């Protein structure tokens, strides 16, 4: 008799999800389903709103990376106004984005995943969280809090608020950078960088302790995608979108944001509010690709900043040019945090960043605009259409976690095959199934902009569909 296990509540992720594990007659894993269980309807309810309200509305899709939505949104608005924004405005937006990378990657690593890595996947679930971390590894916990705080404070200094600031506007930003703020951020960078260096060192020393996880957390050939510049250097604010196959060959690239729909299709799924984007030339579901830290470092040739490039060389030496296991999202994330901190320094030292001309003014000059950026969790696309008065007539949003949806599903299946056995859900297995989802750092608030809610729920189902075991994680 085949059976189903459900994890009702996937914990330590940003959102709401549920996982079903179906067993076959022999009690082995037959299939798995990842359900995102919230739907919010942003794409529909924004119709009729003026386009310049879109940044403030879409920032409320996600409180973890509101800056990503703000930036994708203002870029789409720039395109509707058909303006090239002043150089200082561009540099400031990128600076803000780097600060967000630092805080968001810090949160993902320390607050959400470090409990598994430092305390152990099989450690006491009551303590396997940020509180347990504070008790057992106070240094690491303080580092995590300090790193996130630096990123959030830099955002606050630049943009006026830590969460949902209104500083980024269509055409640029609404206030130039003061020398005090520049100096304040510069003075905080050495501490941030030393925390990241320290953490990388600790993480690399632990790597060999997780052979099974490295081998089964979504260790599979897929395509990878992300933004980089003409020379292949990692870009997070603006760049060329490249798709590489599992062997590392570039199979598609485009520089014009409007071309995304030639390459990216979306499939509705019967069992999730999160749609599944796929690479159109290969079709659904063959066109699986990964985005986010792992995908970006696979898609790019280099980071383009000295320390991050050194780390990237070591990473590739250990794991290969194309890294296939999603366990290494954590590693890639730390390298990117280092990149973001270095890039902040480069930007702050450019004299043009203090220029007071930071905003271009214009009205509606185009009826359609697309903004693409790299959010911490991966490529984020905002696509708007407006009427001649600038009222929204149509919107499409494709978020980072969406791109990863097919890969997350396959990864869950792989981990479940490795760790789930018999009719009962052992805690260590539940946690590993949840942890593979956490490796992607899925932002289910983002995913559920339109779709789905994720504390996680796991269910184990028999072949006849009867629920054998069920747990809620989170």
């Amino acid at each position, binding site marked *: 008799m085949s059976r189903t296990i459900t994890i009702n509540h996937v914990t330590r992720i940003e959102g709401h999800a549920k996982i079903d594990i179906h067993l076959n007659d022999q009690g082995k894993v037959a299939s798995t389903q990842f*359900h995102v269980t919230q739907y919010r309807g942003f794409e529909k309810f924004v119709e009729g709103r003026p386009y310049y309200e879109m940044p403030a509305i879409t920032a409320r899709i996600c409180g973890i990376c509101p800056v990503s939505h703000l930036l994708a949104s203002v870029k789409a608005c720039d395109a509707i106004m058909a303006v090239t924004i002043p150089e200082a405005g561009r540099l400031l937006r990128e600076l803000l984005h780097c600060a967000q990378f630092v805080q968001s990657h810090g949160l993902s690593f320390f607050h959400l995943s470090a409990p598994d890595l430092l305390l152990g996947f099989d450690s006491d679930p009551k303590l396997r969280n*940020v509180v347990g971390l504070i008790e057992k590894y106070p240094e690491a916990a303080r580092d995590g809090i300090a790193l996130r705080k630096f990123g959030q404070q830099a955002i606050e200094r630049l943009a006026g608020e830590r969460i949902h600031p209104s500083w980024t506007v269509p055409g640029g930003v609404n206030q130039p950078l003061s020398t005090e703020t520049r100096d304040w951020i510069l003075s905080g960078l050495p501490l941030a960088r030393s925390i990241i260096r320290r953490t990388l060192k600790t993480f690399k020393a632990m790597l060999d302790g997780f052979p099974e996880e490295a081998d089964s957390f979504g260790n599979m050939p897929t395509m990878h995608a992300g933004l980089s510049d003409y020379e292949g250097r990692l870009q997070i604010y603006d760049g060329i979108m490249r798709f590489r196959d599992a062997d590392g060959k570039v199979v598609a690239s485009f520089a014009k944001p409007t071309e995304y729909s030639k390459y990216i299709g979306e499939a509705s799924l019967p069992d999730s509010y999160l749609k599944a984007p796929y690479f159109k030339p290969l079709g659904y579901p063959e066109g699986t690709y990964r985005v986010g830290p792992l995908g970006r470092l696979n898609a790019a040739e280099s980071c383009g900043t000295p320390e991050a490039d050194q780390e990237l060389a070591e990473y590739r030496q250990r794991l290969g040019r194309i890294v296939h296991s999603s366990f290494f999202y954590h590693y890639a994330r730390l390298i990117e945090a280092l990149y973001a901190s270095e890039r902040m320094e480069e930007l702050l030292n450019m004299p043009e960043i203090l220029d007071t001309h930071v905003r271009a003014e214009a009205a509606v000059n185009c009826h359609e605009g697309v903004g693409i950026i790299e959010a911490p969790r991966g490529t984020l696309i905002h696509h708007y259409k407006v009427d001649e008065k600038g009222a929204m007539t149509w919107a499409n949003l494709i978020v980072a976690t969406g791109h990863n949806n097919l890969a997350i599903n396959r990864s869950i299946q792989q981990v479940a095959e490795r760790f789930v056995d018999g009719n009962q859900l052992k805690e260590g297995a539940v946690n590993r199934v949840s942890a593979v989802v956490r490796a992607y750092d899925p932002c289910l608030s983002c995913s559920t902009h339109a779709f789905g809610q994720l504390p996680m729920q796991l269910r184990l189902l028999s072949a006849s569909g009867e629920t054998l075991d069920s747990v809620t994680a989170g």
Partner: protein
Amino acid sequence: MSKAKVATVWLDGCSGCHMSLLDIDEVLIDVVQKADIVYGPLVDAQEFPEMVDVTLVEGAVSSQDDLRLIQKIRSRSKLLVSLGDCAVTSNVPSMRNNIPTKVLLERAYVQGADVNHRPPTDGVPTLLRHAVPVHEVVKVDIHVPGCPPKADAIAFVVTELLSGRKPELAGKVKFG
């Protein structure tokens, strides 16, 4: 003295209120010395526990799952705090309220898809006709507006409650 039990929950919100809670930074370390965080997005609890002292709720009530969860939480919490504008007024989630849910779903999963043109039905909760504020479905003891409320205000609410006082919020919070 036994530690107070604190839970946090995330319904239909953007997690910004939870992020603002984390923005109390080092105060968090003091808080976890005085209280156990027994449920929420940051910890691994499987089931909402019995006899929780304080539960902070982010987000509006939008789906059948939200509704069931908040009713269970109310019956198991001594004090329920609506944290942020989504919980207090239903804010951004309520922007969908003048559109029938069928139209919303069709926009995303029928018109908005290249493959499989139909809304999901299996293993996902049904949307309520309207996204509503928390106090519309259960009794709420304290309202903390803001989108999100400032970290200072959250730190104040939590430390007052842990000292056994009802926080006096006049002048400390505002909507938006």
